């Protein structure tokens, strides 16, 4: 039986792991290669490296890091951050990454999804979608300005899910559910869905968001942002219908080990690899 995946996320800044809240206030959380080895030992199903200060000048640091990790850790490694071209894909895959996550570049140049999946295969094209809830007044629900937006009712309030780019700094006006369907059409292999509202809060994943996107595509969906307790992971799988759960601080600050998280899930009948 296909198991649900637990994926530690390592936000990388200049070669170190950092962790922030709502995409800002970064704190140091350790050495990426060392942390990768620890998570691998604990039974992580995959690893994700997100280079949050990616630029061409600093790309070499990332490549070196991917190479050093791939030498020691034999589980899938996804790398994202500032990847813009098919050539960027090739370089990072060559360094030992298995999947490449694209975000801003995918929105600005959707052809990149198509081109990369044709060359390297869909399985290595992860489209990361950063999302913020955009609440609307009840009396504006019929407004033409909303266009094709998917309106979701949450706790008696109405919102749609807006896609953000440039590390959460810029709203695009694009509806995340529509965008998810589009990236599937273009050849993406997986969606890494991050709630900016939830990120770093440790109040739990955005379940309505996760569930809405998961139900709209056939692609596997990784829930991300907000994990702070065991129940949050369970909720993401059971109610959010996620295929994988991404988490950072809960692991980096050693609140739980991956083993403990999986034992908890198994008791609650969520299939995991132990």
């Amino acid at each position: 039986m296909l198991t649900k995946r637990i994926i530690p996320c390592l936000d990388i800044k200049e070669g170190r792991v950092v962790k922030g809240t709502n995409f800002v206030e970064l704190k140091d959380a350790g050495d990426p290669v060392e942390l990768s080895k620890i998570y691998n030992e604990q039974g992580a199903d995959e690893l994700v490296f997100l280079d949050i200060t990616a630029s061409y000048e600093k790309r070499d640091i990332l490549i070196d890091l991917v190479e050093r990790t791939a030498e020691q850790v034999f589980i899938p490694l996804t790398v994202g951050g500032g990847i813009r071209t098919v050539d960027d894909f090739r370089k990072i895959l060559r360094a030992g990454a298995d999947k490449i996550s694209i975000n801003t570049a995918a929105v600005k140049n959707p052809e990149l999804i198509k081109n990369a999946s044709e060359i390297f295969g869909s399985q290595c094209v992860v489209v990361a979608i950063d999302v913020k809830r955009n609440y609307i007044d009840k009396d504006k629900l019929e407004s033409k300005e909303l266009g094709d937006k998917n309106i979701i009712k949450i706790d008696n309030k109405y919102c749609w899910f807006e896609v953000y780019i440039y590390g959460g700094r810029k709203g695009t006006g694009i509806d995340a559910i529509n965008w998810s369907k589009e990236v599937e059409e273009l050849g993406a292999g997986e969606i890494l869905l991050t709630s900016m509202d939830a990120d770093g809060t440790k109040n739990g994943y955005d379940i309505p968001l996760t569930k809405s996107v998961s139900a709209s595509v056939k692609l596997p969906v990784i829930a991300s942002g907000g994990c702070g307790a065991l129940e949050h992971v369970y909720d993401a799988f059971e109610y959010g219908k996620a295929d994988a759960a991404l988490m950072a601080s809960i692991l980096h600050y050693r609140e739980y080990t991956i083993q403990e998280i999986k034992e908890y899930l198994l008791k609650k009948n969520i299939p995991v690899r132990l």
Partner: protein
Amino acid sequence: MIAIIDYNAGNLRSIAKAVELYSKDVVVTNNPEIILSADKIILPGVGNFENAMANLSKEDYGGSLKDAICKSVNEVPFLGICLGMQLLMEKSEEGNGAKGLGVIKGNVIKFKDTVEKIPHMGWNNVEQVMDIPLFEGIKNNEYFYFVHSYHVNPTNKDVIAGVCEYGYKFPCVLNKNNIYATQFHPEKSGKAGLKMIENFIELI
């Protein structure tokens, strides 16, 4: 010497690193002559079937990788991984029915629409249906890492050594004489995967 075939797609470093844990004599190559002189051959794989066949068919060194593979495949232990497994078949539904190497009879088909998610991505159990050296020291129904949207459908069911269930049971390990193939990625499957690579390297 163990040759890992480089056809300009995907991640070759992780398979090379995994093999290097057990052998000092590993070459990642796109040179047909080196492949012809190898003691063992690994055809790794991620990528697109049609694209991969086009790359294997290029005549860069006075001969193609495809010809070298077809000559060596019955001579030395051979391991096809993921797309490298699918390429061994006669044809694939991926890429308008593109032709494969035709080493094993049968085709490559897309997962039926009834499965919940495509690609089949993540860790799943491998049921051992044949006793082959590759499974030595690996428990039945062990987890391995899969990522694929297509799977093989061999004509002769006697070559099926392992199966996996995703919506339905599909073949995930093939063995025909000295030829082995896995749909999952042993190089990405933690300890069990590394054990399988070690088993392959110890084949004579």
